[in-house]
């Protein structure tokens, strides 16, 4: 991240993204405090007032008021709040009389920070993997197919005739997994294959990218990559003409 923060960049990023809802929410929040004890961070931190959801979005009001004229330390403070004090669960919104969507505003702040090069290392690495390999664990197509075939072989001893169909056109269900499964937990794929087989489901897994249903890019507000990941999955589903996409547990 550069040492100097460019105010124009910050305002330029926020302006086209602060729609009617955001403006209204920031304006009408009556600071009634109903959201306070709906937040698990508030309760887990001994009812710390700093954890009140409506307090956490003060940065958005502040950034607009200051026209983006903030320093690096300020952005780091924002980072701490949006990553360590809110996991965007939206529970507060369920209790807010105005239905103010705090999580959406936190997400916007994460996007802003990402545009300024501020994001958790783990997520940034995953994003690189998504872009290069289409999945978060950098599994190549060859490794993916190998793993599936190996799973199928292993299972065949237990359940005769079990198949994990790859790229079966016209199947009913396209099954997608978490990229950690082929990497660390292939037994999860086997268990699911067992269920599909015994249930007699018509299913398949795609060969090309799109089989990873995690979307870590979404968590740091990298909307572009998040969209790319989902699009891959839908592209595969359309190519294979399946009726449903199933995602792993």
């Amino acid at each position, binding site marked *: 991240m550069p040492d100097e923060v460019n105010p124009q960049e910050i305002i330029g990023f926020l302006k086209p993204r602060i*729609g009617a809802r955001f403006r209204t929410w920031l304006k009408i929040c009556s600071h009634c405090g109903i959201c306070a004890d709906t937040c698990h961070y508030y309760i887990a931190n001994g009812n710390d007032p700093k954890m009140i959801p409506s307090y956490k979005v003060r940065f958005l009001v502040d950034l607009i008021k200051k026209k983006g004229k903030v320093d690096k330390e300020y952005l780091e403070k924002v980072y701490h709040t949006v990553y360590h004090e809110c996991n965007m669960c939206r529970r507060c*919104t369920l209790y807010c*009389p*105005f239905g103010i969507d705090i999580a959406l505003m936190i997400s916007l702040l994460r996007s802003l920070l990402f545009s300024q090069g501020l994001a958790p290392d783990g997520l940034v690495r995953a994003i690189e993997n998504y872009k290069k390999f289409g999945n978060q664990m950098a599994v190549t197509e060859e490794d993916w197919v190998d793993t599936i075939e190996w799973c199928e072989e292993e299972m065949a001893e237990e359940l005769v005739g079990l198949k994990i169909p790859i790229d079966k056109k016209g199947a009913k269900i396209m099954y997608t997994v978490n990229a950690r499964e082929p990497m660390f937990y292939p037994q999860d794929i086997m268990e699911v294959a067992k269920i599909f087989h015994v249930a007699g489901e018509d299913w398949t897994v795609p060969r090309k990218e799109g089989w990873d249903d995690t979307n870590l890019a979404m968590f740091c507000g990298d909307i572009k990559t998040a969209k790319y990941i989902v699009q891959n999955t839908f592209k595969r589903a359309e190519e294979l003409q399946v009726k449903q996409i199933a995602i792993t547990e």
Partner: protein
Amino acid sequence: MDLYTFLYDLATGPLLWISFLTFIIGSLFRAGLYIMASRKMDKVTHEHFSLKYVFLGLVRWILPINRSVKKNPVFTILGYIFHICLIVVPIWYVGHISLWEDSRFGWTWTAIPDEWADYMTLTFLAIAVFFLLRRIFSKDIRLISTFSDYLLLVVTALPFLTGYFLSHGTLENVSFFGENMELIHMLCGELMLILIPFTKLSHFILFFFSRGATAVEFGRRGYSV
């Protein structure tokens, strides 16, 4: 013309018009601006728009049949009573209706009994004081409160306080207030009306859009609206 006559003529003439028109036109503008900005920037609301969710959400939150009431019954019910008094007393108080009848419009409608207006005003003021004390003494609410939160609570309560004084002659023997209460009451009311469209008091209309938009967003995902 002395200052009092000048101010009185102002408050019952031009300022009255200005405040009502600012309130009405300003609120319509707020609504219009929301719709325009939302059409342009909140695609999700329009792509997934569903009257069913909006209606369900609004009914649930206008009436006390939502999960917040279940979780904080005392605070939310006080909030409901506060808002009911705030709307009912100014519109259905007999003194106000007779002014409408005498005006160029000649409008009239059934008033609530005077005692009701009295009790509702006192209830409203008591709740306003409770809200203010809560803002000052609860360390949670104090942290999230801004200057305008305090100011607008006072601005909202003043017309009721002065109205009560005026109709009961409470401060009649205090020279300045005794002579000017009617003027003070009118100015307080006008100040509040003028501030509504420009401050968070505009939630009286933006509530419908905010809760409606969230109802669409939550409804389409199958969450509770």
